[in-house]
């Protein structure tokens, strides 16, 4: 008893100050890649090097639309090895509410050799999104507006959030980092956030993917069992964009192919800071302690 107490006291406080302080991430850590769009000479080597299809391009009429989808990226850095216009950063706070905002793209005039001649100014059409079966409509528009208002007020004013984690097909890498949120270092409970054992007690589903064919129904049932207002956070490259598995005979791809998603947390797996950022973003508290 005294031994236990003594050890705890001598250990002291190990909890990160995040988000009041910036995330503590090694300068060697690989976070999101950054593409120097103006200097990019040729998208082909990077697209060939990318194992997940996060970097892709389409040629038409002497033009090329090159595209980078952060949702699918596993932060492996193979593109940066292949192309000097791409650089790996150690930025891990990548969570977004809007799936489209994770996609960046640019249009180039093509040279005869297939390399880019020049960047075409203006926004590039991000219309290369692969066709996906629409997520089931959950409720009527009126209901959903009411739900949003209710949810927002509750999330802004509510002090406590209960999360149910659902592994819908992950490799368990995401689970390792999610479990880390309960460690004394990240200590998610300091925000009044708890992981709970049943969806019926939960406000938020934290879902990892890719959603397998065999888990699709279980995920839908879990979603239905979660009382409204509820929000869904998709975690990891597989959960956000299908990752390296994509859609195949055994997988349905990203979480939003099966249930509506409110926040996307890219990464493979996302660093615990990135997870905290995504969860706090979902409840509009990512500025917690910074202001």
């Amino acid at each position, binding site marked *: 008893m005294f031994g236990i107490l003594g050890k705890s006291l001598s250990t002291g406080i190990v909890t990160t100050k995040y988000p009041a302080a910036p995330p503590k991430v090694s300068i060697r850590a690989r976070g999101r890649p950054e593409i120097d769009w103006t200097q990019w000479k040729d998208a082909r080597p990077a697209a060939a090097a990318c194992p997940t299809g996060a970097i892709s391009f389409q040629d038409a009429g002497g033009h090329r639309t090159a595209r980078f989808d952060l949702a699918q990226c596993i932060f492996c850095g193979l593109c940066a090895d292949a192309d000097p216009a791409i650089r790996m950063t150690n930025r891990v706070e990548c969570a977004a509410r809007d799936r489209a905002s994770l996609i960046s793209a640019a249009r180039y005039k093509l040279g005869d050799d297939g390399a880019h001649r020049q960047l075409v100014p203006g926004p590039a059409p991000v219309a290369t999104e692969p066709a996906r079966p629409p997520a089931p409509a959950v409720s009527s528009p009126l209901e959903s507006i009411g739900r949003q208002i209710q949810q927002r007020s509750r999330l802004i004013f509510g002090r406590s959030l209960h999360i149910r984690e659902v592994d819908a097909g992950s490799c368990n890498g995401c689970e390792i980092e999610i479990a880390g949120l309960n460690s004394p270092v990240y200590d998610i409970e300091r925000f009044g956030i708890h992981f709970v054992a049943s969806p019926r007690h939960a406000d938020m589903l934290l879902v990892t993917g890719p959603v397998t064919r065999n888990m699709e129904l279980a995920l839908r049932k879990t979603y239905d069992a979660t009382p409204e207002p509820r929000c869904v956070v998709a975690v990891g490259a597989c959960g956000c964009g299908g990752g390296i598995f994509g859609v195949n*005979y055994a997988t349905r791809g990203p979480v939003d192919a099966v249930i509506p998603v409110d926040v996307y947390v890219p990464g493979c797996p996302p660093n615990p800071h990135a997870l905290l950022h995504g969860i706090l973003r979902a409840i509009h508290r990512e500025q917690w302690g910074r202001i």
Partner: protein
Amino acid sequence: MNLDRVSPDLRPIAEDIARRFGNRIDAWDTPRPNEVYVHASMDLAAGFCAHLHRRWNVRLIAVFADDFRNEGGVFHLYYALAADAAHGFVFLRAPVSPDTPQFTSLANAIPALNWQEREVQDMFGLKLVGHPNPRRCALHDDWPEVYPLRKDFGLHTVLPPFQGERHKFRQVEGEGVFQVPVGPVHAGIIEPGHFLFSVAGEPVLYLQLRMFYVHKGAEKLFEHLPPPHAVRLAESISGDSSFAHATAFCHAIERAANVEAPPRARGIRSVCLELERIYNHVADIGAICTDVAFVTAHMHAMRLKEAVLCACEELTGSRLLRGMACLGGVRFDWDAGQIALLRALTARLRPEFDSLVELIDGSSSTRDRLETTGILQPKVARDLGVVGIAGRASGFDHDLRRDFPHAAYDQVKISVPVYQAGDVKHRLQVRVDEVRESFSIVEQLAARLPAGPVRSEIGELPAGRVALGYVEGWRGEIFHWIRTAPGNRLARCKIKDPSLQNWPALSEAILGNIVPDFPVVNKSFNLSYSGTDR
């Protein structure tokens, strides 16, 4: 037949095979000195495996199939055997004609094959003859009649969505017998699977497991990726063993290409494998304590695990060592500063870990919950072919690091902890011993990491080669077997995670224990669902 290429250790076994079964063997193939293939018909399998087991203590590590119809008009069935004492692998390859797509089960004699044979039946449509329970296993009951690993099945085939559970579990009946279904979505932050407990009062009478909820078509996907991309896929077979799986895959490719990773890369590989072992073992030690309500120990363990993950990030750019493995070696070299960091890590963690173990040992209520809980008897463990931590806690003295030195394990001293008790306490104890061993291995390697490059050039893979890659992951032995195809592709990649082998042991270990002890017994095995289901 020429056995000159066979390694001297393995040669007596090869000669014995030639003497005994010579007239029934169609051909021999020795692509590498410690990897011998015997081509023969299927009726040889039972006698072959039984004889090698009796005479040489050789054990079956995997049964799998390969669709060879495009090349040779038949399916191939492989029986992979490990001769631990002779440091070599023997494969029996038997053809299965597509006209009579069936094979004889050995599961009655070798219970360890139960799931693996059924997986072959499900994925290749080769019908099992004589299996005690030939129901579906890898594909759930509602799947249409498809055979995903046949070459004429497309990776992107669209199947009708899963409509609901139709699996018929065995009924357990009797006065006061209840069924307790759990999963696939579990209460904790863990992977999905279904457990059905049959209980009478508190004690568990029978536990049925149903896995493959996270089957992701990985083996099929390997056949569609160029090898450098496939390394990244291998990292996603089981996230907690990212580096071990990726390295096993790289090892297979390197053996197929006849290229060896340079000494420095092998040293770095071993260090990374040990770091993976340390963080997982420490986390499990903590989690076992939590499951018997000793949360303080868990919190200290999580703190230590975090220190290891941060060091991994500093050494490889990824907390889970992702992106580090590559064909022909490792991707990133370490400078003096990083090696100093590695040594500082073990220097700091050693006393911290000792103090954690002391804390746990000092808690009599924790000891009381762990001792004699979830016993896996050595005899049962042997029958089921249980490997890794669980095997060593139940008397199975093996470790690929010692018996089949890969990476840089031939450069270090390794002692393998083996216990007979087979309870949760001893699965914990194996982990404790192994963490200390890992500290020592990391220190030995960090002190004299050879100079030189960290990567050998692989070039385009020659077609039609077969090769086995192996790594002792933290959970147990990991195998990746490949056959190469033209155009730098793979025709087949068979992955064997130790979890697949060990799940049935959980059903045995829990018998007679009370349901509230299930979490701690399960955690003491800590098997990978994703590694099993792929």
